[in-house]
């Protein structure tokens, strides 16, 4: 074959296509029902059941709606279980609008500081293109959530409920992005005229005040103190008066977040196992801690997740949810869709190649809330709490088979007490810095 597609090539392809009558059958089915519907593997529904011998107690499923806040939902889902345990509640939800507000404000400051730091770089450089591409998208990481909680605390949903703009962030994000890009142009212009950092920060203050104003108009003002009242499982009245979000976290979530560490699985050549990594220019709070990941083999991620689930605690995890996921039945399984038979094409790639070639990366955070174990603690399937409302999956819950965990799960967050001594040391060692556009620098939406 030549570099271009010739008419002779087309005839050959066409002949090959016509040779197998199954192809015409497939074409007719796909024309009327679409690819996924025709590729559904009906056997899977019989084998992948929503039953688990290890399960943590959960609340009602949440809904991030049209926003990229999965990482906040997954994290507040982990934390609200603690509140429910501590106050003996049947259900409660933590506000996701509250961290959204602070995340946007802090990301704006983080972005403007990065612009001040990089005034010597060309506008057309890869770094500036990266920074300008998404100055304050909704996506995030566990460590970024920890930063917000440490600085601002958490509050129940009733204290700062959703608004139109928190549930559908597109317009607000677009406007804030417009402002920040304009601000970036002003900061760079002033810097090119010789303005010192202190002058630029003076400009930044005015810019940040405007951002604050836009955020309050869109999301409402985060409460400084609030009163939380509800009834517990025994119908007894619970009243917590005039408490700050930070105190609420300290008293009722009561987790020591410094105990929780991010473990990733990136089996590519450039990332040795048993090393820790960080990503340049990734974060939300300037003085907050940088993201830090310890890269371990997948079997180790599973061992850690199982240990934490057995102790009754849910596990925040990051995966590529766009792969082989059936929203109707709530399946995450390569057996959910049989594209290979339908299209007679081989899609097999290993995890490392998928990462290297941009085919897959961590896109979404959810919560592991159960696992089904066979002999010797061998997991067969996992229970997943999602944040897409109760209309998808089984009342909002998904079942993931173990091989999907192998192929498409990239990160878990667990208490460091489950790590071996060696692993704890490796986590704390100087991290290797990754470029901002590295696939492991992706954010969960």
């Amino acid at each position: 074959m030549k570099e271009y597609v010739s008419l002779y090539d087309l005839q050959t392809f066409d002949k090959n296509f016509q040779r197998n009558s199954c192809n015409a059958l497939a074409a007719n089915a796909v024309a009327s029902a679409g690819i996924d519907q025709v590729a559904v593997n009906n056997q899977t529904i019989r084998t992948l059941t929503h039953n688990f011998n290890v399960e943590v107690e959960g609340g009602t499923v949440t809904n991030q709606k049209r926003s990229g806040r999965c990482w906040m939902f997954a994290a507040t889902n982990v934390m609200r279980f603690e509140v429910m345990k501590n106050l003996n509640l049947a259900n409660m939800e933590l506000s996701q609008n509250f961290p959204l507000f602070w995340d946007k404000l802090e990301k704006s400051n983080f972005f403007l500081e990065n612009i001040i730091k990089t005034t010597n770089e060309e506008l057309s450089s890869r770094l500036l293109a990266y920074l300008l591409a998404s100055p304050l998208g909704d996506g995030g990481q566990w460590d970024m959530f920890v930063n917000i909680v440490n600085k601002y605390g958490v509050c129940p949903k009733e204290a700062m409920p959703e608004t139109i703009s928190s549930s559908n962030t597109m317009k607000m994000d677009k406007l804030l992005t417009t402002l920040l890009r304009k601000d970036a142009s002003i900061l760079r212009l002033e810097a090119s005229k010789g303005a010192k950092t202190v002058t630029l920060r003076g400009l930044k203050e005015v810019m940040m005040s405007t951002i604050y104003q836009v955020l309050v108009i869109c999301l409402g003002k985060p409460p400084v103190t609030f009163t939380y009242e509800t009834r517990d499982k025994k119908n007894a009245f619970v009243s917590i008066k005039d408490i700050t979000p930070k105190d609420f976290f300290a008293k009722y979530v009561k987790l020591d977040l410094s105990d929780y560490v991010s473990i990733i699985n990136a089996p590519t050549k450039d990332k040795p196992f048993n090393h820790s990594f960080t990503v340049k220019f990734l974060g939300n709070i300037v003085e907050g801690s940088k993201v830090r990941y310890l890269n371990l083999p997948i079997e180790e991620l599973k061992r850690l997740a199982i240990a934490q689930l057995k102790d009754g605690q849910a596990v925040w995890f990051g995966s590529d949810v766009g792969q082989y996921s059936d929203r109707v039945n709530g399946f995450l399984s390569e057996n959910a869709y049989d594209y290979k038979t339908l299209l007679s094409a081989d899609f097999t790639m290993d995890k490392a190649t998928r990462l290297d070639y941009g085919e897959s990366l961590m896109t979404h955070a959810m919560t592991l809330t159960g696992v089904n174990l066979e002999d010797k603690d061998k997991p067969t399937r996992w229970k997943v709490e999602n944040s897409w409302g109760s209309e998808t999956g089984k009342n909002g819950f998904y079942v993931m088979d173990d091989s999907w965990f192998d192929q498409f799960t990239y990160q878990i967050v667990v208490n460091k007490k489950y790590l071996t001594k060696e692993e704890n040391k490796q986590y704390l060692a100087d991290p290797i810095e990754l470029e901002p556009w590295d696939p492991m620098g992706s954010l969960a939406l």
Partner: protein
Amino acid sequence: MKNTLSLDDIAKFDKNYSSNKDYLVSERAVTKNGIDASCVDDALKNQVNPTFSVEINAGTITNQQKSGRCWMFSGLNVIRTALINKFEVKNLELSQAFLQFYDKLEKANFFLEKMIALANEDYDSRHNVFMIDTAFMDGGHWAMFVNLVKKYGICPSQFMPDSIVSSNTSELNSTLTTLLTKDASILRKAVKAKKEQSEIENMKSDMLNEVYRILAISLGLPPKSFTLEYKDKNDKFARLPQMTPVEFFKTYITIDLDDYISLCDSPLISWKKMASYTCPYVNNMVNGEPVVFFNCGIEPMKKAVINSLKDHEPVFFSSDVLSQSIRKEGVLANGILKREELFHVNLTADKQTRVSYRSSFCNHAMTFTGVNLDDNGNPNRYKVENSWGKDNGTDGFFVMDDAWFDNYVFQVLVNKKYIDQDIVKTYEKNKLIEVEPFNTMWMNLD
């Protein structure tokens, strides 16, 4: 202010916010209704009247649904006008799925050739990432449309209508992404292992054979020939001889697509005025026509559009449809969304800053089908044929005011007979300048 955001800073912002009750009025409106609904300028909306002194008889509105095929829709809308006039029919739609089939196939080949050529660059180099980000998407440009119709022809919609997959492409695109990124990894390894060129070509042929099969299963096989029968405006029956899509194109599309010039207004500092730019990474076809932008500025573009419309020829154009637009009512007017008043902020940045800093970029192709000229012959608004179905705008048509043209239109495709002849001469004399694809002018239209 320091590098970090202190709680004192926040207290200060909070004091500023609480000092003005106007902010609270905005807050109540926005938290309840959302941003855009709280700031539409109704007075301006009522001014942008959908009547036009110059208008073309366009066909029925089309719908690209959940796909990024705007550029094919607009291209086909331009050339179908010629057929509607020639056959004297009320309406005729040309198949977009037909072009889509060959576009995906050609893009797959274009991608694999680039993967071979770039095999010795890191896989996360800017070039490789650009290819992976664009090669499996639906977007495109006018030149890519011309490549397809010249090589494969056109056919009326009835011979290859839209199907589930053609109008909602996400499943197909993710399937092709999986397959072709895998193929890319195999080809890169083969090149690095110094395999013979003929062997690499054979590998590529097998890969494209799989792509062809997936496309045929997803979109159906394109027709090899067809017989068009129709009734004209006067209910008179006609039957054309059986012909191939290429024959149909050559017989009935008498306009020469080589006569069309891509005039653009790019405010990027690095782009010289009256110079032509192209980029080797932006295309769908190996050896296809290059995607070109001739940077002549906004005024000659407007003149050419008006000349063309006066002579009953619609015009393909590209713009930033996401800015200052209200979709449901179909209005593109500078100032239609009073966000500055709503938030008490200054959002003004000139076109150059907006484009350099990526807050505005060319993202959507539509078709000019009319213009309203005032008593002095100056344009104040334009009629725009969109491809978002008839439920948006006035039966699918949008109105654009003149200030929006200045700010958010980037490119028009006009026959050179409607362009100032001095500009045409400069265009023909100037050599194409090849540049990197890393600014927003090279993003595909979808």
